[in-house]
């Protein structure tokens, strides 16, 4: 029963909190650029509006196009349920650890890219091609950084990794973890389609990646896709803040402890969101073929992280 409740609560938290983070990032970015910007609640209104709209579906599209939003939405939520957010155990941690987490995100991306190809538009194909390429070169850096943490924790289970992070041998400024954090931060920018890799605000046809794939989607489907994108951003950010800064995480399941844990979690997320905003405002978008340089830098950082677990053990 408590398992069921935990799953339900975490699902609600993922769905409720993720648009807020997107809203904050958008609002703060505007502030830094001397614009007034949309309210931080704007993503919620957008989602409701999308849900109320009629849909136009391409005449060339097949059932893949219609199934994609559901697959993406469920797989992203499943990945989110494997991530410990507020307290130190994730509801689905028995069903899979960090490998299943990455796998589920990849499943969503696989269908997202197919959905981009389905309506026969060249924009969709271009977006799919670029998304899969960037994901492919980001993957080794992501995995290697995660392995570095998993090796110190002795487990690929995210809850176990969190427990190890709270253990006595944990040091905040462990060089391995600093380097791995830096690598994962770059991967976070690439995976969530942020500047300097992709511009989430652009609709300039030749530069967009994520937006190009979902160009043919509208209404309810678009709501599901946008929502999945924010949930994905939230869980990736949670991976960074909870595994590397395991402070303020609730260790028991009393209501007070959980409320404090939630506050701590949101505070850490907002700090990370602030960092993302700073990077986005101070950097220009890279040319597509310069992105591999950035991601190989992430890979090298992750390799150094691994080497330093060997040197400083």
């Amino acid at each position, binding site marked *: 029963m408590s398992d069921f409740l935990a799953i339900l609560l975490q699902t609600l938290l993922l769905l409720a909190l993720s648009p807020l983070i997107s809203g904050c990032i958008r609002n703060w970015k505007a502030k830094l650029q001397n614009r007034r910007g949309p309210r931080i609640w704007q993503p919620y209104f957008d989602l409701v509006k999308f849900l109320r709209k009629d849909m136009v579906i*391409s005449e060339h599209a097949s059932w893949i196009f219609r199934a994609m939003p559901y697959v993406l939405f469920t797989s992203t939520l499943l990945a989110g349920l494997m991530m410990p957010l507020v307290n130190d155990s994730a509801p689905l941690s028995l*069903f899979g650890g960090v490998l299943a987490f990455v796998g589920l995100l990849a499943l969503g991306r*696989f269908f997202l890219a197919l959905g981009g190809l389905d309506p026969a538009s*060249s924009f969709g*194909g271009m977006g799919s091609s670029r998304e899969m390429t960037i994901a492919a070169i980001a993957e080794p850096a992501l*995995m290697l950084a995660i*392995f570095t943490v998993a090796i110190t924790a002795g*487990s690929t289970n995210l809850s176990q990794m969190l427990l190890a992070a709270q253990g006595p041998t944990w040091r905040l400024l462990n060089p391995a973890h600093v380097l791995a954090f830096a690598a994962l931060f770059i991967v976070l920018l690439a995976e969530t389609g942020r500047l300097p890799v992709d511009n989430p605000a652009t609709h300039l046809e030749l530069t967009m990646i994520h937006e190009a794939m979902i160009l043919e989607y509208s209404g309810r489907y678009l709501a599901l896709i946008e929502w999945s994108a924010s949930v994905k951003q939230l869980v990736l950010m949670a991976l960074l803040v909870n595994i590397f800064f395991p402070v303020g995480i609730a260790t028991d399941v009393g209501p007070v402890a959980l409320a404090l844990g939630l506050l701590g979690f949101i505070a850490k997320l907002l700090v990370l969101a602030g960092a993302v905003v700073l990077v986005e405002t101070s950097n220009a978008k890279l040319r597509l073929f310069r992105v*591999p340089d950035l991601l190989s830098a992430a890979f090298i950082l992750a390799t150094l992280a691994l080497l330093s677990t060997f040197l400083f053990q």
Partner: protein
Amino acid sequence: MELPAPTLLLQIAFCVYGVGAGASLLALRHERIANLVGFGCATLAGLFGIGAGVTALIFGPGDGGGAFALWPPLVPYLQLTIKLDPLSAFFVIIVSFLALAVSVYSFGYVRGFYGRKSVGVLTAFFNTLLLATTLVFTASNAFFFLISWEIMALTAYCLVSFEHEKSGTRNAGVLFFIMSHIGTGCLILGFLLLFQAAGGHSPGGYSFDTFRALGATMSPGRRDAAFLLFLFGFGVKAGIVPLHIWLPEAHPVAPSNASALLSGVLIKTGIYGLTRVLFDFMGTPPNWWGVTILTIGTISAVLGVLYALMEHDLKRLLAYHSIENIGIILMGLGAALMFLHTHHPMLAALALIAGLYHTINHAIFKALLFLGAGAILHATHTRDMEKMGGLIKRMPKTAFFFLIGAVAISALPPLNGFVSEWLTYQSLLQGFGTTNSLVRLMFPLSGAMLALTGALAAACFVKAFGITFLAQPRSEQAAQAHEVSPTMLLGMGLLTAACVFLGLFPTLFLTLLAPVTQQLLGQPLPAYLIQADGWVLGSAKEIGGTVSTLGIALMGICLLPIPLVLRLCFGRRTKVRIGPTWDCGLRGLTPQMEYTATGFSKPIRMIFKALFRPRREVQREYDYSPYFAKTLRFESHIEEAFVTRLYRPLNRTILRLSRRMRALQAGSIQAYLIYIFITLLLLLLFAL
């Protein structure tokens, strides 16, 4: 009820394959009968083979450890002995299951050859190939093993060159023939080394039983030489980089049902051989063996998938993916060898299981994808992806089966590819703690390369599925494609069901592997591997990590009502309209404006430019400015670096040397007599 002995079932399977081959040859002139009898026999024999393998693994091989002689020994040294031990039984299951599914598919598929090619010849070779492969997996002495190996290679050559009217097919066949025989030569030398170490000369000296754990008694130099010979010999068959160049040439040109067998089973004989020799015969390995195999595996995996991405010939693309997957299997085996060296039998068991699980998974999804490619070829008469598109509407069932295969091979949860790669990751991660030397950095780095491979494979199959099945048809043939016959669909359906089963119920299947690890490593399954009454798959340690694909799938279904609830709350009055795709205000999209397979992989081609060295040629004709060209011709071509840098110079050298050698063959009898005399003298001196 008394179950029949596995050896009896296996004997029946051998007989039925034999009958199938013979009857097909008798019915050469009656193609319908040849089809029915030939593939009927193969289907039946496949069923018996599965029965033999499964009963041998569950209830033990029966009397005498599953050993029997196929034929009384007539010639000394040549004993046709068979032994169905757990490792053999596991591989017999793989070959028999594919025999079953591919034969069912073939009933419909070979109708395309009626009146064009001899179906009887095809079915005869098909049955012989299956018979020879099953014999390779079960033969229990080196002589018989090599004979079966050779029959298998020759029948495979005949199947590859089945459509020999095309010159490309003939060249591919010859390349396969040459590479395969170089490999066999190395195997013969390797077995001779073992024979010598066993103190041979007795008729039983070639038996695998005398080779068992022989490595411990050999001198290190000979042992390493034997390792290298076997690695080369079996590596050619498995298609490891850089011995792989025949594979992408030979597998695509065979008829698609044969391609499925070649990529699904035949290259696994190399894996079987390596497992048999390294884990059964060689004793505790030195560290560099494991390091070599892990490195070769990693390189094969990454290069295989990178070259696959550059292909727009659907069957060549799949053939390159076989190289990638052999690499993943070898990563498991290499890690297992390294654990054996450091005396961690439990981790070795985990890594070996990962490799073997990926072996059966790859056999199943690769066969499924090749059969899917065959169905497309049957319907559109082309292998070129640039001429396909929109097939999902014309061939919906084939599209569904191909999609399942694509998800499985891309290692996405919850299907079987994910499970075996998960096990591989686990063994690589646990391996970090087994040693203190710098070698341990290899494990996570190989893990990172495995991640790169998985992500590139996903990109490749988005391309393969998306360009082939989605969007608008790009050619007339694709627009007029039709769904294939029910037997072909049934064959693909069987393999799809196996993909789903092996994905969702890994723990059920893993219990079958327990006798194999017991036999090879003397180690039962790691205790934490199967948790929560078989619902959850674990690692080798208590907290090492868990995964439950079934749990993920069920939970996914539980989450599906959320979008429906949202729709009920907010969008009850929304309507769905079908409209044209956004075309930037032009007058409608044409198939020419769609993204192509070559375009899809362009970013990857650019990023890995140093590796691919693409040759491109652009010719423009224009009047005033190059921006307003009247005609434009674009050509882009990629040749493998191994072919241009390694094989072509080697080939030239060999030809030059042979031209020199021709001087010896002057055509005068006297000269030849002198050669014979000198040889005799040298031999006599050598013997003294």
